[in-house]
Every structure is written in C-alpha cells, then in structure tokens.
C-alpha cells in the first residue's frame, strides 16, 4: 500500500463517529490518502458512502478486528469502480454443481472451480449465485473459505433472495449480500464480460 497521508482509528467508536472523523481528515488534506480502521460492516459501508459522495475513490480490505478503508483524494479523474482491482468480469453461477452427468462429481468440480477462481488474478468484479448455487454461499457449504478469500479482496458476492427463500436458506446466508432479479439483470447488462457456470 502507498504511504498514507492520514490514519483514522475509528475502532470502538459509536456511529456516526467513523464517518465524522473520516470526513474531518479528508477536509483537512489537499490531496493524498486517508486510511480509516473500523470494527464493523455498518461503519465500513458508511465510510465508503462518504467517500463516494465526495467523488473520491474508496476501497477496503479485511484488517485485524475489522476493515481498513482506503480513500484517495485529489485524483485527476474520479474512478467509477470502488474495488481494489478493477475488473470487467461478472460470473453467474446457476447451480451448486458444475456440469451434468454425476451429482457427486458436479459438487466436487464446483468446489475446485471456486478454489481455482479464488487463486487467479485478476479476480472477477462480482459473482452472482442463482438457483441451487445459493447453497454455495450458505452455512455448511464447503466452498465458503474460497468465497471469503475473494470477498477479502473486494469481490462482490451476491445471492438471489427468492432462491434462498425457496431452499429455506434465508437465515443461513454465510457470505455476501442478498440480491434480486432487477440487480442481476443490471449487473449482467453493465458487465464487459459475463461467465455463466
């Protein structure tokens, strides 16, 4: 990581202190970077929103006891992507198994696929999980480690809400967020490349 201009330790601070302190730090510098440390997702999301509202680039990664949000001020052009690595690939996974012919083999292949995906570079921008693929992002899935590794590097993981409901997994989602069909179509429309599994 580049040298940070200002470091804000907002761990243990009640809402909205993380946003307020980050805003203060950003207002005080002409240009440079602010690194804000938070200990919960709400604070992380809010600090990212703050940066976005000012047109700055923001990215985050997991850090000890929480997240480190890096904001860059004073860039020549505001970036559109908020992820650490910008990518043009959206992966659409439509089943908990990869391929047809044998269920056990299919499950194993999917596990290996997600592992291999988590090890490559560049990573996709987003992975969408539809139909039985939501089993992969739920508690008990043996692909959670691979998926979490990708979340830590800024990949967006989204699982279809209706599908989770259908498989009675709504309360068992273990990684990423819930999405709906409008957002899925929107993501596919805006992606430069789409890989459907």
């Amino acid at each position, binding site marked *: 990581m580049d040298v940070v201009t200002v470091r804000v330790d907002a761990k243990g601070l009640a809402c*909205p*202190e993380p946003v307020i302190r980050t805003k203060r730090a950003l207002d005080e510098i002409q240009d440079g970077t602010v690194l804000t440390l938070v200990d919960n997702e709400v604070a992380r999301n809010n600090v*990212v929103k*703050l940066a976005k*509202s000012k047109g700055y680039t923001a990215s985050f990664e997991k850090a000890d006891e929480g997240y480190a949000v890096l904001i860059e001020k004073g860039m020549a052009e505001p970036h559109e992507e908020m992820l650490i690595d910008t990518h043009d690939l959206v992966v659409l996974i439509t089943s908990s198994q990869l391929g047809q012919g044998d269920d056990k083999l299919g499950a194993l292949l999917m596990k290996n696929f997600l592992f291999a995906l988590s090890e490559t570079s560049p990573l996709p921008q987003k992975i969408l999980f539809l139909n039985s693929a939501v089993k992969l992002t739920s508690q008990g899935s043996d692909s959670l480690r691979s998926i979490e590794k990708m979340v830590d590097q800024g990949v967006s993981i989204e699982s279809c*809400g209706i599908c989770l409901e259908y498989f009675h997994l709504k309360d068992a989602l273990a990684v990423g967020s819930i999405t*709906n069909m409008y*957002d899925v*179509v929107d993501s596919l429309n805006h992606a430069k490349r789409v890989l459907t599994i």
Partner: protein
Amino acid sequence: MLRNIPKTDDQRILVGMDTLDDAAVIRIDQDRGLIQTLDFFTPVVDNPYMFGQIAAANALSDIYAMGGDPFCAMNIIGFPSCLELWVLEDILRGGADKVMEAETLLVGGHSIETPEPIFGMSVTGFVHPERIMANAGARVGDVLLLTKPLGTGIMATAAKGGMLSEAEIQAASEQMAKLNRGAAKAMIAAGAHGCTDITGFGLLGHAREMAAASSVSLHFDVQKIPVIPSAQEYAAMGLVPAGAYRNQNFVAAHVNRAAAIDESMIDLLYDPQTSGGLLIALAPENLGIFEREMVAMGEEVPLVIGHVGSCPAGTIYIS
C-alpha cells in the same frame, strides 16, 4: 424468539401476536375492542421536553394506526442518578402536554434507575371490533399513502455527528412530535382498508409486514415518497444508522427494486423511523374524501405513493 411464548386461542383476542400488528386488540363487548400498546426508547434529540413529546406521540401512534381512540396512558421512565432532576421534569412535561393534546388521560407511571434516560408510555384505547385498521386489511387495487416524510433515523445520526443546523433539528423534531391523530381521523372517515404506522423497521420493513399479513404485493413509486429535506444528502454521506442495514438484511429478500434507484434513496426506505407517519391502504374512489378530511383537519394532503397488487403475496416492488 417469540416462538417460545405459549400461544392462546382465546377468541376475544382480535389482533394478537400472530399478525405483527401495531397493537393488540381484545374484544370486551359487542361494540368495543380494547387496544393496548406500549413503546419506550432512549433519547433521539437533545432537548428533554421535545424528547418527552416525541416519545408520547410515538406511543400514541400505535392506537391511531389501529383506527382507534386513545383513552388513558401511563409513563414508563428510566433515569440515571447522575443527571439533574430538571431534565426528567422537562421530559415528563413534554410527555404530559402531548397526552393532553391527544385528549387522553395520563393516569400514572413507573420509574427505575437506568444508565441512560428511557421514556415512553403504555397506552390504552378503544376501537369498534368491526372497524379495526389492521395490517392485514390492504386490498388489491388500493392506493397507498404515507402521512409523514421519511428520514428521521438518518437525521438523528447526522445530529449526533454535529452536522445539523438548529433549524434542521427543529424541523425533524416537530415531525416526530406530531400526532397521527388528524391523519387517523381522515382515514377512518374515508373508510380505509388497512393501516400501519412507520417506525423502527422503516417503510420497507413495515410495508413487508402489511404485504405479508394482507397477502398482497405493495408497489411504490420512489418519486412520490415524501422525504425530510436534506435527509437524502446525509444518507449519501454515510450518516446511515445501523438499524437501516439491519432492516435491509431482514427484508431485502422480499424487495424488488429498479436498478436505477440511488443507494441513498434505498437507505431512506430502510431508515428506521421514530414516530413516523401512517401507511394507509385506501380504495382509490375514496381518495377524494380522504384528501378533503385531511384539509379539514389542517393536515397536509399526502401524495399517493403506490398501490396494492396481487402477486406474489408478501413482496414489495420499488420503481
């Protein structure tokens, strides 16, 4: 967690814990249902008198949301020993004044020592058993109206961060302290089918409750939804309370939204409200009566923000 409370089949309970409604209604005779509700919380504004007003309005709101008239109320008080007593006096005065405005009897209360101030009320009211404005009453084809603007959670967060001017704090406080009495009278006169007040679960959380209880879908037009001025700006800046994210996690699976809607607007729709307005489901042919009654009550006439659809039951659509 409510699963573990033993259920009862007592036929006198007209509205109980099953339909997630605003208050309980128990039939006491042919023409009267008893409404019981209680609400309390920690301070949402710095001014103790306003806090009392807001907490009282909030507690009374559940009675209005059921289509009833409040009858009597009792204070629920928690107060720390380290705060000066004049603070508590002001809170109680604020609450008492609001109860009087609602023409309701304040008949007592209870207090304990707590690490931070808590205030609210237990309220009893009456409603005719056949005219309860339940969550479960919305009908396909109804129009949807919202009688107060959204954004009090975000404004409270912005206030905590020292971002609001006195005028903004005052305006938001007045919204929260306003009784839903006038709106309730208007909706009863217009024969509304169903109603719920918008509080901690946000518009979408309470809309989901109404959609599920009524077995309908609710469709909202984002352009028409009233919002406290500058609340969306503060939401965009990240002054979004944790409760908004909780509400989103809880309800998002049932919400379908057009991709073009700004994230800050979505935050407003999930923003937990304090003493919010009424979400009313009304037959479109009665809209004229409702608007006339609102004017007669001295209330602002709200825009129609959506309509009730038929499928799938329990879902929300935002465009």
